[in-house]
């Protein structure tokens, strides 16, 4: 009997830990605090570098969780214990503020994202001359975008295609990635011949040489103003505010620009 109870307890504990990834992270590290950050997938390269330099400066380390902004919003609304949320738009943070999950005063537009058309290096498509119209080429069987239902870049992609007047013709060739990273990965693995992904992905060090990109004109889609918020239930609001301040510095601005973001 005792044996069973012990086993049951172990199973439950393990289940709890697995179900709540942030809980395992939100602890005091040896040196100082750790901030748990939820971030839109397009930041997956930029934020890592920012996190490293922030930690060198302040001793506060960041634990990063990337995903589609909509997905992350859902998790936060259901109690996921993050300290900060970097969205790929402004609406999701506002949604959280309305729901009381985030501090209204902490809303800050930290960057403006850019959408690009991205194809593998060996693609024969002539991006520079045709731009989005290359998607009409019969060799393009699959076009990867992030799911517009919950990813701001996905919505931007759809808007751009509509603006270019080709949405209806390419709609049946769209494949939806869970988030922009998956969309980029579809293209990178060759399963999709082209994709609409963040500029941040196309210029990331790991991606250089793997593909070529063409910047979609900014007026083709609503601007991707990306905002962040500090979450209400954070236990480390002080450190979170420090991170926000850091983002306003020149150093951070350089890093963001390096990854293709423009500053508001």
């Amino acid at each position, binding site marked *: 009997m005792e044996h069973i109870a012990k086993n049951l307890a172990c199973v439950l504990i393990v289940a709890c830990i697995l179900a709540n990834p942030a809980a395992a992270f939100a602890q005091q590290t040896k040196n100082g605090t750790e901030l748990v950050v939820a971030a839109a997938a397009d930041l997956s390269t930029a934020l890592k570098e920012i996190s490293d330099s922030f930690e060198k400066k302040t001793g506060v380390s960041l634990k990063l969780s990337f995903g589609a902004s*909509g997905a992350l919003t859902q998790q936060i609304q259901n109690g996921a214990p993050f300290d900060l949320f970097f969205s790929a738009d402004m609406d999701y943070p506002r949604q959280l503020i309305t729901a009381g999950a985030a501090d209204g005063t902490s809303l800050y537009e930290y960057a403006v994202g850019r959408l690009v058309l991205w194809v593998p290096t060996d693609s024969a498509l002539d991006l520079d001359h045709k731009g989005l119209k290359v998607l009409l080429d019969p060799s393009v*069987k699959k076009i990867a975008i992030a799911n517009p239902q919950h990813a701001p870049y996905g919505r931007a992609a759809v808007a751009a295609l509509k603006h270019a007047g080709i949405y209806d013709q390419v709609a049946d060739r769209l*494949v939806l990635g869970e988030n922009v990273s998956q969309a980029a990965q*579809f293209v990178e*693995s060759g*399963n999709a011949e082209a994709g609409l992904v963040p500029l941040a992905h196309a210029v990331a060090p790991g991606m250089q040489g793997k593909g070529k990109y063409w910047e979609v004109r900014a007026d083709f889609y609503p601007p991707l103003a990306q905002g962040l918020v500090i979450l209400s239930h954070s236990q480390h609001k002080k450190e979170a505010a420090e991170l926000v301040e850091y983002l306003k510095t020149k150093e951070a601005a350089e890093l963001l620009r390096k990854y293709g973001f423009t500053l508001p």
Partner: protein
Amino acid sequence: MAIDWQAFWLTLRLAITVSAVLLALGLPIAYWIAYSRWRWKFLVEAVVALPIVLPPTVLGFYVLVALGPRSPIGRWWISLTGHTLAFTFGGLVIGSIFYSLPFAVQPFAASFAGVDRKLMAASATLGASPLRTFFRVIAPLSVPGLITGTALSFAHTMGEFGVVLMVGGNIPGVTRTVSIDIFDRVEASDYVTANATALLLLVLSFSVLAVVYGLNRKAWVVGPVK
């Protein structure tokens, strides 16, 4: 609230296709596992059982990258069919076949192994070939295991998510299964539809399983004579 009936129909088609293929594919594998006396048989059994412990993401990864257009197998596939494995119903079927393989093979093999060897020997002495022995003696006496295996692979495929998420591309009518649909709804905060869809899937799966297990109990239990 608008339930995506297309997703249901697609998921049903996927589950039926996969169960049917696994019935055909699983029988010879299970037969070999049940009756072979090769000393390294346990390795094959381990490989068959792998999908139980591997996360579906591993299978998804292989379909996407290792079998993708940049790999030799992927290129061969494209030359054969004209398109990639990913983003197609066929790709889902293949991924699901590996994913649900042990759920078919293990009950099949257990059932075969439970058939009295003497019956098989008797069949042989009466002039029946191994094939005839299989269809006339082994299979009829293994029906409970066959039904269980098929029902399990059906149910398992109905609920499949990880592989589809990785390689499906969420294309309506082609790869947007019910599980993906529910996930999407949740992410879009449409809890009402998500709830309705999930409930419907639950009821559908339960009904199918209940019918299968109910029939299984009554008609097919046989044992050795005396």
